[in-house]
């Protein structure tokens, strides 16, 4: 038959509301599939990144030798493996010079994930290496060349074995994890260990077995491995804390999920509005079809079929759009990622299709389903009551669908709850406020000029439907404000975190006697540095008189911990007091300031007595306050800070961090020659990497914001359109009665702008609440009130909705009133 759903769709395109419906669906699918494809690929990259920081997928670590037959077993199961051994030793050169170093012996195949880098001269150009040093060779950390006065090709000795210096060691993927702190790094081959004769039972060493395999093979190997582990053997996997970049990317990912969820909500609302208008306009058609013999089932099939077809088209275009969105993301900053993001697979597009189906079923179908109930009597009497009033059930279904979509999409109930709370406040406040204000409007309007009277009378007359409209506008504006606010604070946060000149080198092990000269040398070179902090190695032993367990097997939770202590009379820059008071300068009291998360892990609260061991001496202090600090600030950060007098008698070394521009790297060679005992840790590559990624992620976020803004505008358009028919009709009558253009348009503008004003006001209040919850719970950020957005939300609400309203009704002044009245 030719009167098919498709035919009807094609012809109904002219009506306009189908356009909004289709666009909203496309946007929903596009946003959802695009962002989840992006997030999947990003997650993929992050996982690879964390594997890189282990140099493997799975690691066993132990202070004693790990059974070599495990490696054989791994090989049999198809798991790649390698071994490393880290130990302190003396490195001898030129007969008389020597230096305490941290030796890392690596087997062939190391690293299994990530890459070693080296350079052909100290502090020279960084090159990727295919593997570690060969037999009989060592790679030395750059500063060792100056310390020992050796060059590439010279001989050095470790224990009884002699080695040729083959390269300068630059970075290891698992550097952070195995950073020993004994001294500069020396890399050698694992097979040369026996020849050195330095590793004896009881030496302070760390053995590692590294494994890598595809996930399913690795999992079955892990199943076998887990029961083999003995005391002192620890299994490490990717969940071992993620370093700097991970954090920024994870926040970005959360933001994107939030944006995606909001996009779905906005699109859902737009779909519901468009479907409702579509159904209102189709009541008469259905009545005709029914008078000609169409049954309800027939009508349902027709409209259901149309909807499915629309859904299919929208899903296809939406998936394309989604693919485009993520492709733009990755072309923007894919190159900057430390690893190549893997493919996203089809799952994101399946999610997109599921979203489309859910939106159709829960938002578009309810109003259309009721079309079948339209009375055929409408062909005789147009005033026959309509059956398509929204019921409580429809709203409940919509709310359920919104919550499920948001949760299913973000997998984060806190995020879902925060947005739903904002929406709930909007709706509740909205209905009360709107009804009250609209009622009040009449009193004012009575005394106002005729243009105002016209507008306010219009507001008053359609009180209930206007209140609904205010709520819908407010929802859209609120969601957009939430997104703008979160994005702004996110980007501000990143930019203040790593501004130009962020410290990119750490300096530790500065002896008390070197503090002055080091400081002078930095100043002489005009190098921007943080203050020099004293550092004392100590151990936390007891809380509230209760001894903590000593076991080293537990990384997390309550146990004794080695930590670096410092002292200060003032709260260091970048630290925030969370609870308690900072002490008076020069205090004699035994006090301590504890980092908040550290305190939480150990169950420490303000006022508790905590026992420490510094060297071999016990020390007790009362917790004066808890601090929060930012671990990514590249400043020296400490878990524990004491008043200076308390630690004055203990031996301390000092540390600082400073910024060194790339062209000034040569300074390090001179510096190390002058202060051979000071350890310099180079972070410049990492800092630069983080900075670039943050910039690119910011760009990606702006892009998403633009897409969501489009979804929000669609809601506004759909919302305005929904009320255009009734307003057009009235305006046409006014025109017929001789009202001037300016009166009709002015009245419409004031009417819509008033709706926008109320909506903007509500939206701003609800957005602040929602952002508060999001930042505190989800984004791990501090909330501050944003007075900037108040005028924005309210002003934009007024102008946008006023303008849109007038634009949508513009035909009322350009077409003859008779034509309009006949049409409507």
């Amino acid at each position: 038959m030719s009167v098919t759903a498709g035919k009807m769709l094609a012809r109904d395109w002219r009506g306009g509301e189908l356009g909004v419906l289709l666009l909203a669906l496309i946007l929903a699918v596009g946003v959802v599939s695009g962002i989840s494809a992006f997030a999947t690929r990003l997650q993929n990259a992050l996982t690879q990144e964390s594997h890189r920081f282990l140099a493997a997928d799975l690691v066993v670590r132990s202070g004693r030798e790990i059974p070599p037959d495990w490696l054989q077993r791994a090989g049999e199961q198809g798991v790649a493996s390698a071994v490393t051994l880290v130990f302190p030793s003396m490195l001898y050169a030129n007969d008389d010079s020597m230096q305490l170093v941290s030796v890392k012996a690596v087997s062939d195949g190391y690293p299994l994930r990530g890459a070693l880098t080296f350079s052909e001269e100290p502090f020279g150009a960084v090159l990727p290496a295919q593997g570690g040093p060969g037999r009989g060779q060592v790679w030395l950390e750059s500063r060792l060349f100056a310390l020992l006065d050796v060059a590439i090709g010279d001989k050095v000795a470790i224990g009884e074995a002699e080695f040729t210096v083959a390269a300068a060691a630059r970075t290891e993927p698992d550097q952070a994890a195995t950073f020993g702190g004994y001294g500069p790094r020396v890399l050698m081959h694992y097979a040369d260990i026996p020849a050195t004769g330095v590793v004896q039972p009881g030496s302070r060493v760390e053995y590692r077995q590294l494994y890598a395999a595809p996930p399913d093979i690795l999992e079955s190997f892990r199943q076998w491995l887990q029961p083999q582990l003995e005391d002192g053997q620890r299994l490490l996997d990717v969940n071992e804390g993620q370093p700097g970049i991970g954090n920024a990317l994870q926040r970005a990912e959360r933001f994107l999920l939030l944006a995606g969820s909001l996009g779905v909500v906005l699109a859902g609302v737009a779909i519901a509005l468009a479907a409702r208008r579509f159904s209102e306009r189709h009541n008469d058609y259905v009545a005709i079809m029914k008078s000609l013999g169409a049954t309800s089932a027939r009508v349902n099939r027709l409209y259901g079929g149309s909807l499915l077809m629309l859904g299919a088209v929208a899903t296809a275009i939406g998936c394309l759009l989604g693919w485009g969105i993520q492709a733009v993301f990755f072309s923007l900053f894919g190159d900057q990622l430390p690893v190549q993001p893997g493919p996203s697979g089809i799952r994101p597009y399946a999610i997109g299709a599921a979203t489309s189906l859910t939106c159709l079923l829960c938002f578009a179908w309810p109003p259309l389903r009721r079309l079948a109930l339209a009375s055929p009597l409408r062909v005789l009497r147009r005033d026959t009551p309509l059956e398509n009033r929204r019921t409580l059930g429809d709203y409940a279904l919509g709310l359920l669908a919104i919550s499920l979509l948001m949760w299913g999409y973000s997998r984060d109930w806190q995020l879902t709850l925060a947005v739903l709370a904002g929406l709930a406040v909007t709706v509740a406040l909205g209905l009360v406020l709107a009804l009250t204000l609209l009622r009040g409007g009449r009193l004012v309007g009575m005394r106002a000029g005729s243009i105002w009277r016209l507008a306010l009378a219009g507001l008053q007359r359609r009180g209930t439907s206007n209140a609904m409209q205010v709520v819908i506008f407010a929802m859209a504006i609120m969601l957009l404000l939430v997104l703008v606010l979160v994005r702004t604070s996110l980007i501000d946060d990143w930019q203040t975190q790593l501004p130009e000149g962020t410290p990119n080198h750490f300096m530790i092990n500065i002896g008390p006697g070197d503090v002055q000269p080091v400081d002078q040398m930095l100043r002489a070179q005009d190098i921007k540095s943080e203050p020099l902090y004293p550092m004392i190695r100590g151990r936390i032993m007891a809380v509230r008189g209760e001894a903590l367990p000593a076991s080293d097997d537990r990384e997390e939770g309550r146990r004794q911990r080695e930590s670096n202590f410092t002292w200060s009379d003032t709260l260091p820059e970048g630290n925030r007091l969370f609870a308690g008071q900072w002490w008076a300068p020069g205090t004699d009291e035994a006090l301590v300031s504890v980092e908040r998360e550290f305190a939480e892990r150990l169950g420490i609260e303000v006022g508790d007595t905590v026992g420490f061991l510094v060297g071999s001496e016990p020390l007790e202090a009362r917790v004066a306050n808890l601090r929060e600090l930012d671990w990514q600030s590249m400043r020296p950060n400490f878990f524990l800070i004491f008043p200076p007098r308390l630690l004055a008698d203990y031996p301390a070394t000092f540390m600082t961090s400073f910024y060194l521009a790339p062209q000034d790297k040569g300074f390090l060679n001179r510096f190390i020659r002058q202060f051979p005992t000071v350890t310099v840790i180079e972070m410049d590559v990492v800092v630069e990497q983080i900075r670039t990624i943050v910039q690119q992620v910011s760009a990606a976020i702006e892009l998403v914001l633009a897409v969501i803004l489009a979804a929000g505008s669609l809601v506004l358009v759909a919302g305005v359109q929904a009320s255009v028919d009734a307003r057009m009709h009235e305006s046409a009558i006014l025109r017929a009665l001789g009202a001037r253009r300016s009166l009709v348009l002015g009245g419409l503008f004031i009417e819509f702008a008033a709706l926008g004003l109320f909506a903007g006001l509500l939206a701003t209040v609800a957005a602040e609440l929602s952002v508060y919850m999001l930042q505190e719970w989800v984004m791990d950020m501090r909330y501050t009130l944003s007075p900037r957005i108040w005028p924005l939300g309210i002003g934009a609400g007024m102008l946008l909705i006023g303008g849109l309203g007038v634009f949508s009704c513009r035909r009322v002044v350009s077409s003859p009133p008779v034509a309009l009245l006949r049409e409507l």
Partner: protein
Amino acid sequence: MAGTELEILKGITLEIKSGESVAIVGASGSGKSTLLGLLAGLDEASAGTVVIGDTNLGELDEDGRALFRGRHVGFVFQSFQLLPALTALENVMLPLELQGHARAREQADNFLQRVGLGPRTGHYPRQLSGGEQQRVAIARAFASHPSILFADEPTGNLDTRTGATIIDLLFELNREEGTTLVLVTHDAQLADRCQRRICLEAGQLVVE
């Protein structure tokens, strides 16, 4: 007047014979359209029965009545009631297709020829004049060979001359098809052309 029931039609007993043409006349608000709605099965009576042929419409639900309308009833309305999304031909095909008629296109085309719209079958309602739209509606009403045709003020939206040609067309087709015709009208001339005239006043039949 909440709670007070408004009786629109009362005590109407009326029999229309097959092939007969009947005009229902009366002032505005006298209940003409309501009666037409009931007779055509567009509405349900709160009391009383409507029987067409051997079918008691009161015993059918809305879907049953829809199927009945599709098979046995044709309509011509004052405001034409064409679907704006469909062409003239598709509008005429609609009732045929709803019944699963095998040669809907041919038959629809045939009827459009008969009402003199042969060259305009591909036009949409908005491209047709009022008179032409009503011709499409008449073609649609007769295309499914209904046994009874209901017309609600078929000339109400047309000028006198166009109205006259439409009436001619309506009666001509009616005669050719042997359809029972029930029409509601203000137009005395139109009413005169029917075999019988029924006058309604405040919901009651007035014998003439």
